[in-house]
């Protein structure tokens, strides 16, 4: 039994449910006023590309910094690579690219990557070979021995990405990795991320670029004002909003309103009927009936919510107001116009 246990712990360094990151109830308030995180729950499975979305100031970077022990949470429970968050131990197997990173300009690209490797306790040889290989991988071979102060923003981003990968990390946390990178570079980075996932790395991505996230992420979470408001695959998150649309010539048929949840809308000389279902079979009777009435059907198609719509839906609350950028700020005592 004992042997079995140690065997198991050798082969599953992650928590039992296979999550690499599994945190609950994360709270962080800056300067006693700025509530950056207010009870975040987040699970990232091993081997997936996970995207964290959210408006400016939602607390995405803060969450990543908490995982990387750069910021201390007020409260947190859960694990990161099987260790409690805040412990330095798992960090040897983690790669991190902060947003607005700032490497010393007097270093060369190779030196930055090797320094990062040394800090992760790699041997000299490992650092050397990894650094060269990674420079090649991010397309910066020619620039390896030039100083960083001669790099462009996108080049810095590439080197930053390479230094995050030098220790062959299990998990890579990237805070806006495509910031400042040209479209070709973005595509390269996207492909790199997919390759990395296929090699078994878990990738945690912070980004505003919805279309980009949609292309690579297996799962996403949307964070608004310090809380995760949605979490799942894009497929799951958009499932409820999927519908079919049928367009036909002529005025709107009055029997439509009798159907559950279906709506009809009159356009110039057309009628647009929308049925909230993703089942093709379910709309066939409607088409039949329209045809029987002798109407011409101009279009039938399945509508899926775009990530942008999804995002907007997450950001707008029940009362219909859009969440303001930034964290919730507790008003200072004594200030504010509505004091009694």
């Amino acid at each position, binding site marked *: 039994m004992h042997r079995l246990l140690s065997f198991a712990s050798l082969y599953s360094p992650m928590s039992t449910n296979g999550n690499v990151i599994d945190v609950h109830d994360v709270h962080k308030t800056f300067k006693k006023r700025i509530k950056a995180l207010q009870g975040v729950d987040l699970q990232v499975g091993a081997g997936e590309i996970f995207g964290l979305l959210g408006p400016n100031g939602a607390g995405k970077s803060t969450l990543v910094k908490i995982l*990387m022990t750069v910021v201390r949470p007020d409260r947190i429970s859960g694990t990161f690579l099987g260790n409690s968050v805040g412990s330095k131990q798992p960090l040897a197997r983690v790669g991190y690219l902060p947003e607005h*990173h700032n490497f010393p300009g007097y270093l060369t690209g190779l030196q930055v990557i090797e320094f990062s490797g*040394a800090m992760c306790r790699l041997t000299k040889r490992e650092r050397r070979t990894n650094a060269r290989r990674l420079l090649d991988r991010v397309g910066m071979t020619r620039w390896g021995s030039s100083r960083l102060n001669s790099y462009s923003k996108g080049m810095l981003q590439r080197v930053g990405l390479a230094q995050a990968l030098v220790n062959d990390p299990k998990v890579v946390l990237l805070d806006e990795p495509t910031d400042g990178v040209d479209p070709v570079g973005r595509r390269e980075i996207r492909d790199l991320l997919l390759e990395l996932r296929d090699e078994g790395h878990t990738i945690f991505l912070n980004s505003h670029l919805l279309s980009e996230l949609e292309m690579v992420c297996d799962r996403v979470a949307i964070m608004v004002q310090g809380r995760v408001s949605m979490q799942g695959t894009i497929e799951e998150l958009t499932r409820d909003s999927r519908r079919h649309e049928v367009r036909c010539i002529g005025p709107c048929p009055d029997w439509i309103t009798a159907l559950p949840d279906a709506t009809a809308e009159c356009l110039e000389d057309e009628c647009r009927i929308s049925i909230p279902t993703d089942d093709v079979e379910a709309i066939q009777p409607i088409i039949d009936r329209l045809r029987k009435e002798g109407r011409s059907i101009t279009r039938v198609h399945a509508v899926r919510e775009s990530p942008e719509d999804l995002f907007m839906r997450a950001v707008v609350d029940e009362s219909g107001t859009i969440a303001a950028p930034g964290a919730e700020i507790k008003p200072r005592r004594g200030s504010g116009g509505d004091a009694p």
Partner: protein
Amino acid sequence: MSQTIALLIDAYRLLNARKIFWITLVLSLLVVSSFALVGIHDHGISIAWWDLEIPELNTGSGGWSKELFYKIMFTELGIKIWLAWVATILGLITTASIFPEFVTAGSIDIILSKPIGRFRLFFTKYLTGLLFVILQVSVFTGASFIVIGIRGGVWEPGIFIAIPLVVLFFSYLFSVCAVLGVITRSTIASLLLTILFWFIIFIVQSAERSLLFFEMMNEQRVMAYEDAVDRTRQRLDKVEDPDDMERWGFLHETLDKRKAILEESESTAGNLDTWHDGLMFVMTVLPKTGETIELLQRWTIDLAELPGSTDEPSRPIIDDDDHFRLDEDRLGQDMQTALRNRSPWWILGTSFIFELVVLCFGAWRFNRRDF
């Protein structure tokens, strides 16, 4: 270990990228080579091709030895003026940015996300920051060793004690600079505040020296007036009829006057003593920059070696016109002795405790804060 080495290499690269580091190094070598251009002979000194006749400073009647001449040049000009003053300011300018740059957003994130504890990171970074002064003072002392050896004819390994002493001296200031850098995150602010702090130490030290000087001068005064009172008393004792006021009234007057001055001087001594004790307490708490550097001279040059220091101590006197005549030679020697008698443990130990307290405070702040 690989982490420590990486941080050390990083510190070296940082210095290497700074022009001012190399400028300081070149200036250091220039200072040493200018020492080599200065020579001493039996009627004066020579600077390159010029001979200067100086009656007090030669190997003949002046009583100097070549060895002493070069050693004094090394400790007084090389260390005290160049390294502990000019090069230190250059050093602070070079290194003041280390911690503010270390904790800037975007660069601290990377290093904190590595598997290394914050305390260790802070202290390692601090120690690697001392690399500047270690390299500078080693090169300077090594070159001086060669110059003293070739020109002075003595190979004096004792001067290498300058390396730990100057490094220690610099580390007092650098600890303050580093902690201010972590707190303010600003190079200019931490540099200016450190120099201000250094200036305050300098003021306290100078004030303490001045008080010590006044104290010793007053001691001589007390001594002189004690002698004078004794002399007057003896004179009164010798006369047949000391109570004859008409004849000996002036003696009584003189005696009273001298007694009054003696009493006044004694109470001044008490006052000076209290003040001096107060300042000494402040000194104990602060790092002792000046005294740390002076340990070098103390350990490499024997007072008896100095020309003119073998005179018998004389006594200060009150002359017949009732003027107090200070014995300056004695005052100088007493000061030297008093300063040299201060325990190195006190000088280094209390300074080191100061440094440690400052660093622990900085490490605590560094450990606690969010970046």
